[in-house]
């Protein structure tokens, strides 16, 4: 892939330049076609279309959020390139004007260099590649010198040599960019289209220069064909960019709104007012009973609340932190309950991260709804295993169980936990439950070392 891409670009460039020159040469040699009215009309139409696109581009750059001025510049340069083409010179001459080939030659060359530069710039922007400053200086300086040299040599009739130097420089730059993009795995349809557009404008300018130097006699319609193709390609680039931008915008919108809702829900957990007030009431009655268990309850409750505030800032926390939260929660619940809930930590393996308060949500659900405290041998087990390079996490109880198809609606917490597992670890928690036998929640995901979690920053 890495090699094929620059080769394709180079190949299509050579093909385009070669074919353009050949067509122009053959047309001049075997059929002296005068610029008829039809070519003139076609020329004017195409010029008008370029102008229209430029206007649309300018308007959209100002009006539409997320659009880019890169395409405006490309459109402008293509328009200038075509306006100074050999076709345009012929058209003028047929209508009685005299145009200096040197002025036209140098104007079209400048337009060509700018359009190529814009193509490169657009590619850099599209793929987020930073260009080396020295390389940038070298490219712009050498193409400036080549253009200057062309202006001088046009007078002596060999401006095309300097032009081909320019083509060579930009071909190298485009190849470099495409290679970098391919190395990052970012090559898409629009890459190929931009490369083709580059080749075509190189072709049209090659014919222009050859005509102005008098190597070939300008054949009407050659640059017209090129311009028409350029126009189509430009439209394709524009479409590709719009689709790309829409895709990106869509993704970031989805992510933003989900992140917001998670935060809201996390907050809802933190300040679930009835939980706090019930807890305070429990603490008070524990203190009346005996001071020590009151102290223990205060410690557990404040650790739990602090953990939930801290969780607000993190996408992932080490599993040990989550276990601390679960421990604080279940111990606190047990202080309040006459029938203790047996919570078993079967956690041999802890070197991974989870979304904060996610596993706790499942434990909380089991504490509240499974009814294990009313059962003789009732228990909740939190189990973590290393399974190759994957983590197998299970939360199961032998309580009442429920019908998993009926959990929608009120089970915001469960859905929220599942969503966060999906967003952060690409894991989908599976809930299996049978009435009378209990509930088992299984999550499996690749093992990410806990160092990556937010909490370990700076430790």
């Amino acid at each position, binding site marked *: 892939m890495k090699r094929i891409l620059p080769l394709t670009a180079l190949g299509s460039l050579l093909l385009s330049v070669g074919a353009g020159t050949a067509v122009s040469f053959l047309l001049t040699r075997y059929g002296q076609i005068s610029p008829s009215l039809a070519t003139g009309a076609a020329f004017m139409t195409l010029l008008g279309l370029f102008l229209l696109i430029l206007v649309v581009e300018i308007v959209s750059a100002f009006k539409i959020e997320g659009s880019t001025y890169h395409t405006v510049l490309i459109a402008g340069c293509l328009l200038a390139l075509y306006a100074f083409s050999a076709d345009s010179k012929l058209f003028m001459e047929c209508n009685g004007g005299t145009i200096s080939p040197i002025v036209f030659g140098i104007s079209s060359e400048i337009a060509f260099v700018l359009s190529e530069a814009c193509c490169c710039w657009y590619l850099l922007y599209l793929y987020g590649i930073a260009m080396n400053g020295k390389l940038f200086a070298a490219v712009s300086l050498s193409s400036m010198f080549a253009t200057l040299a062309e202006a001088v040599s046009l007078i002596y009739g060999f401006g095309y040599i300097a032009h081909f130097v320019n083509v060579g420089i930009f071909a190298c730059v485009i190849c470099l960019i495409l290679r970098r993009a391919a190395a990052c795995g970012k090559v898409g349809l629009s890459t190929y289209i931009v490369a083709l557009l580059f080749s075509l404008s190189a072709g049209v300018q090659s014919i222009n220069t050859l005509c102005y130097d008098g190597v070939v006699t300008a054949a009407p319609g050659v640059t017209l064909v090129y311009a028409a193709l350029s126009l189509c390609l430009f439209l394709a680039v524009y479409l590709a960019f719009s689709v790309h931008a829409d895709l990106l915008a869509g993704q970031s919108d989805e992510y933003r709104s989900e992140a917001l809702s998670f935060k809201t829900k996390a907050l809802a957990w933190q300040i679930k007012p009835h939980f706090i007030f019930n807890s305070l009431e429990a603490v008070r009655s524990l203190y009346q009973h005996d001071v020590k268990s009151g*102290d*223990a309850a*205060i*410690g557990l409750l*404040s*650790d739990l609340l*602090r*953990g939930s*505030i*801290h969780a607000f800032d993190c996408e992932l926390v080490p599993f040990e932190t989550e*276990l601390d939260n679960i*421990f604080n929660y279940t*111990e606190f619940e047990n202080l309040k309950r006459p029938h203790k809930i047996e919570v*078993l*930590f*079967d*956690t*041999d393996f802890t070197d991974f991260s989870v979304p904060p308060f996610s596993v706790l949500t499942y434990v909380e659900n089991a504490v509240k709804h499974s009814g294990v405290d009313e059962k003789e041998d009732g228990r909740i*087990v939190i*189990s973590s295993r290393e399974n190759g390079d994957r983590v197998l996490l299970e939360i199961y109880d032998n309580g009442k169980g429920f019908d998993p198809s009926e959990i929608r609606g009120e089970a915001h917490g469960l859905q929220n936990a599942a969503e966060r597992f999906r967003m952060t670890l690409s894991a989908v928690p599976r809930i299996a439950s049978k009435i009378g036998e209990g509930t088992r929640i299984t999550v499996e995901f690749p093992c990410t070392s806990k160092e990556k979690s937010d*909490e370990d*920053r*700076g*430790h």
Partner: protein
Amino acid sequence: MKIVVIDDELYALQSFLGEVVDRDVECRYFRDDEQAILSYIAKNSVDAVFSDVNMPTIDGLKLAEKIVDLKKDVAIVFITGMPVTMADLSEKLRRNTLGFLYKPYSANRLSEFLNLIQKRVPLLSVRTFDGFDCFADGKLVTFTSAKSKELFALLIAYNGNSLTMTDAIAHLWQDNDVEKAKILYRNAVFRLRKTLTDVGVDCVGFGRAVLTLDKTNISCDYWDYLKTGGGAYRGEFLKNYDWSIEYLPPLDAIAAKS
């Protein structure tokens, strides 16, 4: 040892005083007079500063930086109600900060920090004759489950030998099937580890399916009795646990000799 405590709330200062009064600690309290704090620290040799983070007139973190500028080696502990962590501190502060004492703090956590500052390892004393109880620096250790306490008792009875999971299950959970017994074992290990961490005692090595005990900072009546024959053995050893019977004959033999 000299420490400085900075907290704007009077009741918080008072509860601090209650915790450190029985230690060999000279405590100096400040509320919110930054100049007084800095000039005191500049003039005196201070081992550690306990400072609140959010105070109405002073920013605890900035104050701590000024203190570190004055005294390079001073240890800093932040007393805070918010989940402040090391990640919130500047590079300079991290070097001197021992940790965070989250409000409301327990006597255990405070003792841990004082131990750290005094570079003192807490002494665990274990009582096995009659019932089984542990005391860290004289305070009774509360285990979070009966089985994790029993597991620790077994480890003490093993007297420094490593205790494998199979052995532990054979003693404590022989009535359960293998899979369930393993779960119960791991749960007991998890809880034991938590309890010991909470009291700042680091004497158990938690390996894969094996536990080891470092006897250095533990005093145990059973071990002393095995060595010297002196102590309060009256025919009862870890009497709450069924498996303790196998340990009685050697103890009785020592008792018969003396």
